[in-house]
């Protein structure tokens, strides 16, 4: 029966990589984790979207979306990024101190933040980037195969 299970479908196919991000801004004494915002260690009572989303890789930085008032230009932000990969692929932990290069207020009480890496491990950074590059290439190859391109 195990052979049949492996043949039919792989439950792992339904699992996506997850990025768990903890953001700390010492200037505003703010920490954002697990969808909650903490100021001086106390959870904020304001009901809003407190997620931190990783949108884009820059060469030596990243673009994220975070709740409003998270930071301002010039602030130093610490990011702890946990990449939880589907079973069978290696998960990864990347920690960095960054500097806020620009902040743009966007709708829904959110900020788009451009960060440049200040303190980080190069290998760890490349490993994080590589996971998504490799996956993108795999997807492209799969699409080409499926469609017969």
């Amino acid at each position, binding site marked *: *029966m195990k052979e049949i299970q492996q043949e039919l479908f792989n439950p792992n196919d*339904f699992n996506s990589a997850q*990025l768990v991000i903890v953001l700390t801004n010492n200037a505003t004494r703010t920490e954002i984790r697990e969808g909650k915002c903490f100021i001086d260690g106390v959870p904020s009572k304001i009901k809003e979207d407190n997620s931190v989303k990783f949108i*884009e*890789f820059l060469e030596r930085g990243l673009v994220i*979306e975070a709740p409003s008032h998270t930071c301002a230009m010039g602030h130093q932000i610490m990011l702890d990024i946990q990449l939880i990969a589907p079973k069978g692929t290696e998960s990864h932990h990347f920690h960095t101190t960054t500097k806020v290069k620009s902040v743009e207020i966007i709708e829904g009480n959110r900020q*788009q933040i451009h960060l440049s890496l200040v303190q980080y491990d190069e290998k760890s950074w490349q490993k994080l980037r590589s996971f998504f590059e490799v996956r993108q290439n795999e997807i492209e190859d799969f699409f080409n195969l*499926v469609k017969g391109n």
Partner: protein
Amino acid sequence: MGDTPEKPLSEKRAQEKSEKEQVVSTEQMKQVFRKYVSDRKIVIADEAASSRAGLAKTLVELGAKTININMAGNLQVAEEEIARVKPHVVLCDYDIGRGLGLTLLQKQRQSQPETKSSLFILVTGNTSQAAVAQAAEEDVDTYIIKPYTLEILRRQMMKAAMAKIKPDPYFQTIDKGKELLLNGQIEEAMATFNAAMPLNPKPSLACFYLGQANLMKEALDQSHNHYNSGLNYNKIHYKCLVGLFELLQRRNQYIEAYDVVKRISQYFPANPQRLSSVLRLAIVTKNYDDIEGFYQTFTNMDTRSEEMIRYVCAALVVCGKYYLQKRFNTRAYSLFQKAAATGTGRTKILREIVVNLTSEKLANEAKEYLARFPAESRQSPDFIISEYLVLDLQYSDLKSIDEGRKLIQAGIQDAIIFKTMIRRAATGNRLEALEHSLIQAKKLFPDQAREFDGIAGIKP
């Protein structure tokens, strides 16, 4: 550490030429894309505002006009925008709120039937193979994962557009063949697809359309051969796999069809309708062990859609019914338990289990499942019917018929109630009740007339 040895001059020149060609072709791509996108209407659907803004900015940099870009932060707004704007280009996330971005693809196709020049691009944080496979199945133009680099974003968008705007000779020839096929010019279409074959080292798509053309001519053997040829070039060519599966079903070659649909499921796992095909064929081909195997795999999945749950539960119940009929009661009970546990609170599943148990007169076991109906469902038809079936096992003929009549008068007009009344009237020799029940049953359920007659002992 020594110096890297100098490359020969000829190799250097070849490399420079290749890089120059690459730069030229990227430039050409940018120009072509700019021309394409400059007057196209675009909808960007993503919950994340910064994602929408970033995509819009990139599109503008590549030549789109800001005025032509429409944003949507949720599925409903996206659907409205697509209906209003009729965009050629849609960029959306795979998951939009609780909804599926792929549903927008159908909306776009309805609003913009000219699929040759339209683009549907997924830009998403969902990296799962199931999502990717589903997108490929639906013929999405490209799938870009977040977080992306600008280079990848631009490259993927331009490549997708180029494939549509300037398809290579192979795809151009196939497109010509498709048009001929649509116009019913089968022989000309086949000649065109044959002409396409040498234009690609792995011409699975041409094979697929040759298969389709032969299907239209009712040349099923040739159709079968072409699909297989396509799969020899590329074993996961989706169209060839599905074409072959549908042909095998049509030819009632269920065992072979089952093998093919299992293969499709392996590469394209996310389609609930296909899961139902797999489960149905597992039953038809009596591969009941496979259903239990499916269930094991299913329970290991983190995300299970409502449809998948329904199909798996239904298959477990059918499997259980089979084992009951074979007198493998313990196995049957185990399957019913799994179905009830997986389909927690789903009254249709519980009702089917009760139907199967009461048909084998297993009153105590049926009562157990009656007790599992949620409190809030005790007034539902599923519960009331299930209760009737359990009580029927202890009623006299007259009482059963009477209680059945009350339910029908109360508006619970289910075929199974009639079947029970007809059976009891026939076995109790209550001819008037039998005639009355038959007339009423056939009037309400004419498609089951034969079955009612069969229960009543009336030969055709």
